[in-house]
C-alpha cells in the first residue's frame, strides 16, 4: 500500500499547504529576528522593512486560509489529513499574531534613545534569543512531525516567562533611577511583554503540533514561570 493519495491533485494540494506554512514560518522567523535586532541596536532604519514584511506574512495567512477552505470543500479530509488541515489553520493564525507582535516591537524602536546602557538591554536580548530559538524549534518540530521536540518547546515556555520577569525587573530598576526615563522605558516594557506573548503563541503552535502528530491534546496545564505567577 502506498502512502500517496490515489488522487494526485489532492496530494499536491496538501503539499502546497504545508509548503506555504513553512514559508510563512521562515518569514515570521526572520521578521522576529530583525525586530529584535532593531530594538537591541536601536536601529531606526530597519523599521519600515519590518513593517513591510508583516504585510507579506498577512498575505500568506489569507492565502493559506483560501487553500484550507478549498481543501475542506473539495476533499473533505479525514484522519491525518484533517488534522494537517486544521493544524495549518491554527498555526498560521499564531504565526500571524507573532508577526503583529514583531511589527509592534519594531515600532517601539522609534522613540528609543541611541545610547541605551548595555545592562538594560542584556536581559531583553537574552529573552529575544530564547524566543527565537523556541520559534525555530517549534517550526522544526512541525516540519519533522516531532512530538517530543514540540513538547520540549511547550515545557520551555516557563523559561520564557522567567526571563520576561527578569527583563522587566531590569527596566523597572532603570526607570526608578530617573523619572526622565519613563517614556522610553514604557516602550521597552511593552517590547518585553510582546516577546512573552510571542512565546505564548509559540506554545500554542507546540500544542497544535502535538495534536497533529498524535491526535491527542497534551494533558495538564501549561508550565508557568514567574511572570505569570506574579
Amino acid at each position, binding site marked *: 500500500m*502506498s*502512502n500517496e493519495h*490515489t488522487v494526485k491533485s*489532492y496530494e499536491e494540494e496538501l503539499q502546497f499547504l504545508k509548503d506555504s506554512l513553512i514559508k510563512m514560518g521562515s518569514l515570521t522567523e526572520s521578521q522576529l529576528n530583525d525586530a529584535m535586532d532593531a530594538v537591541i541596536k536601536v536601529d531606526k532604519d530597519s523599521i519600515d522593512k519590518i513593517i513591510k514584511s508583516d504585510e507579506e506574512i498577512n498575505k500568506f495567512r489569507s492565502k493559506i486560509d483560501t487553500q484550507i477552505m478549498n481543501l475542506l470543500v473539495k476533499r*473533505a479530509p*479525514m*484522519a491525518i489529513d484533517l488534522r494537517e488541515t486544521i493544524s495549518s489553520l491554527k498555526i498560521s493564525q499564531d504565526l500571524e499574531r507573532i508577526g503583529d507582535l514583531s511589527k509592534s516591537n519594531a515600532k517601539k524602536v522609534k522613540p528609543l534613545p541611541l545610547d541605551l546602557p548595555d545592562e538594560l538591554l542584556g536581559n531583553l536580548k537574552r529573552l529575544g534569543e530564547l524566543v527565537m530559538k523556541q520559534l525555530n524549534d517549534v517550526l522544526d518540530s512541525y516540519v519533522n512531525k516531532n512530538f517530543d521536540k514540540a513538547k520540549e518547546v511547550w515545557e520551555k515556555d516557563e523559561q520564557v516567562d522567567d526571563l520576561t520577569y527578569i527583563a522587566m525587573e531590569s527596566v523597572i530598576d532603570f526607570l526608578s533611577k530617573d523619572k526622565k526615563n519613563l517614556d522610553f522605558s514604557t516602550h521597552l516594557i511593552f517590547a518585553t511583554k510582546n516577546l512573552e506573548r510571542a512565546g505564548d503563541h509559540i506554545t500554542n503552535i507546540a500544542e497544535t503540533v502535538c495534536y497533529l502528530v*498524535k491526535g491527542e491534546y497534551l494533558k495538564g496545564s501549561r508550565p508557568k514561570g514567574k511572570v505569570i505567577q506574579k
Partner: protein
Amino acid sequence: MTNIKIKSKNLNVYYGDKQALFDVNLDLNEKEVTALIGPSGCGKSTFIRCINRMNDVIDICKVTGNIEMDGMNINDKDLDVVSLREKVGMVFQKPNPFPKSIYDNISYGPKIHGKGETKSELDQIVEKSLKKSALWEEVKDRLDEPGTSLSGGQQQRLCIARAISVNPEVILMDEPCSALDPIATAKIEELIDELKKTYTIVIVTHSMAQAVRVSQKTGFFHLGKLIEVGKTEKIFKNPDNKMTQDYITGRFG
C-alpha cells in the same frame, strides 16, 4: 450502559472455496448506529447478511463461528429464520418496493406475520410505519397508488417503512443512499437518527462523510478481515491502524 445487541465471534464465511470473512469479532450496540466501511468485496455486506441469515439462499455459502443476537445463536440450524427476519429488517441499495400499492407494501409484512388481524389494525400499522419513516405527509392521500410511482428517495423511505412495519429490533441497511440525490439522502440520514432511538441499526456505506454523520461506531473491513473497529469519531480523526487511515484518507492503491 450500552447493551450489546449482536455479537459475532470468530465468524467465517466461505463461498465455495473462497473465504469471504475471516474470524470476525464484532459487537453491535443496542440502539446505536454502526457503520461498516471498506472497499468493494471486503466482506461488509457478507457480514450484515449473516445477521438475518440471508446467506442461506446461496447454496455454496458456508458459515462457521458464532453470531448471537441477545444471546440467541443466529446460526443455529433449528432457528426459525422467518421469525429471525421479523426481528431483523433489511433495506437495500436500490429501493425495491413490491409492485403493489403503497398501502400493501407496508401491510404485507404484518399480514404474513399475523400482526394485523383487522383492517383498522392494519390501517394503524401502515400509518405508524409511514409516520416513523417520515413519509406519511407525502403519501397519506395516495395510499392506493403503486409504490413504484414514488420518487427514488420516497421509495427508499417506503422500504424503510416496510421494514419497520413488523416492529423489528434491528435494521440492516446496505448502502441505502447510494442511488439517491443529496436531499433524499439527507432525509434518510435524518430518519436514521430518529430510528436509532428504537432500533439497532447497521449501515454499510461507501460514503465516509455519511458514516461520520450517522454512526456512533465504525468498523473497517479489508479483504474479509475486520481491521479496526471503534468510536466513529476516533476512527475518522485518529485511527490506530495504518490501513484504516490509508483507506479513509484515500491512499488505498
